């Protein structure tokens, strides 16, 4: 059972419903040490929900989730921080774990925002704040990193650099990463395993496998799949506006 010891979090047919509406259901996936698992899918397909199930934020879930680590770093997609709190970047870095100055400075330098250390969190731009969020998540050297659109609002060159950084972190810390991203190029180049969601798992596998998949194509269009493949399929089901799945 050597590989099982590498599992950090495992979802078994997990689902979550709110007000009698399923946000996502039947998701099975696992994140292992040193591996990057990426969730892709259109808006409202349940990517963030799946991440929150994996993190244990949602508790009343269908199916089960097994988490084997408590050293978690999380970059949420949306974060509402109350600016009535006088909070500097430095205070925010030690929010969930006490860190020494070296770890804080190192993480802030890696994401390129060390110069903002004493700034008030409310005075940062969207991209700057995103870099601080990522720095905070990696500074505690987690075993599991959950990154929900970690580079949103970051400028183009910064985006590439941050994705390289994420890949590097996964190698250096040997931590598992659950990544949610819209950038298919990045997804395809840096990911070990892709899970394509649309309220349920449409398809999953290596980036190559997924790119060839007919459902992936149905969701993202021919061009997206031509990035990696010219393989063609016909899909066997469609999604109605109510979220039902109909066989063709």
């Amino acid at each position, binding site marked *: 059972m050597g590989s099982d010891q590498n599992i950090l979090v495992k979802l078994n047919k997990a689902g979550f419903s709110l007000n009698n509406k399923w946000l996502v259901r039947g998701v099975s996936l696992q994140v292992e040490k040193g591996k990057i698992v990426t969730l892709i899918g259109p808006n409202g397909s349940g990517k963030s929900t799946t991440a*929150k199930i994996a*993190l*244990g*934020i949602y508790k009343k879930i269908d199916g089960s989730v097994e988490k084997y680590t*408590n050293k*978690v*770093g*999380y970059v*949420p997609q949306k*974060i*509402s*921080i*109350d600016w*009535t*709190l*006088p*909070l*500097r970047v430095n*205070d*925010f870095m030690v*929010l*969930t*774990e*006490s860190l020494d100055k070296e770890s804080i400075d190192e993480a802030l330098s890696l994401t390129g925002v060390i110069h903002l250390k004493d700034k*008030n969190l409310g005075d940062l731009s969207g991209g700057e704040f995103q870099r601080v969020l990522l720095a905070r998540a990696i500074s505690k050297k987690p075993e599991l990193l*959950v990154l929900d659109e970690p580079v949103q609002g970051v400028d183009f060159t910064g985006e590439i650099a941050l994705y390289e950084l994420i890949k590097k972190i996964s190698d250096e810390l040997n931590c598992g990463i659950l990544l949610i991203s819209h950038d298919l190029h990045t997804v395809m180049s840096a990911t070990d395993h892709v899970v394509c969601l649309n309220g349920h798992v449409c398809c999953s596998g290596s980036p190559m496998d997924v790119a060839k998949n007919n459902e992936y194509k149905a969701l993202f269009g021919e061009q997206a799949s031509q990035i990696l493949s010219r393989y063609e399929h016909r899909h066997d089901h469609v999604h109605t506006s109510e979220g039902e799945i109909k066989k063709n």
Partner: protein
Amino acid sequence: MLDDFFIRALIAGIGVAIVTGPLGCFVVWRRLSYFGDTLAHSALLGVTLAYSMEFNIAFSVFIISSLIALTLIQLQKRTNLPGDALLGLLAHSSLAVGLVVIGFLSFIRFDIMGLLFGDILAVTVNDLLIIWIGGALILLVLKLIWKPLFASTVNYELAEAEGLNPDRAKAIFTILMAAIIAISIKMVGLLLITGMLIIPAAMARNISSSPQKMVIYSIIGGLLSVILGLFSSLEFNTASGPSIIAASLFLFILSLLNIKQSIKLKN
């Protein structure tokens, strides 16, 4: 020295201010001022219970306020009413029931004004012990839950995701709120306790750049309010609670001058 009522009041007030400083910051950050009010209103019921059953006042206020807090949590889960409506419901109904019960206890002479607005003459050596020992316990527990409570105040999901158990910290904080109201009711009075929590913290917000600084300034503001308030209470023969709160308002207004300056600097 403890024979002097004024010295006793001063020692009691200083003890209360040291505890309301940090708790008040969380009340401001977590937007709990109306929640504090509700617990304070329900304290009247606790006081009447203490008189009729010859209990210790602080203890019975603590029990009743905790019960009201638990009731609120249950009502929030089981009804579709908004939080502020539930708070209003509990605040005013427990105040009303408390006053009705006082009506039945006509054989006991109540100092209602003292209950509502505080009475420094009423502070006994026993009360000092309750304030200082109870206060030390509150601060100790607050220190223990500081990290999860503060992290979830900033962002609940981050705290939950990174394994800090924010729900437990919130429940414990609710109990601490009931406890501070219980130990400070004689000093400030039940209508003004929330002011003692909020105003020094609000003053501190205006002049601080980090959460730690805000806690320290909030304590200092509370201490100055107590000292200023009690001396003027003695001088002008006014009730202790309103005098302390008026003093804290004075400090708050002073802190506004600082804000104006820093806004000018920014522009």
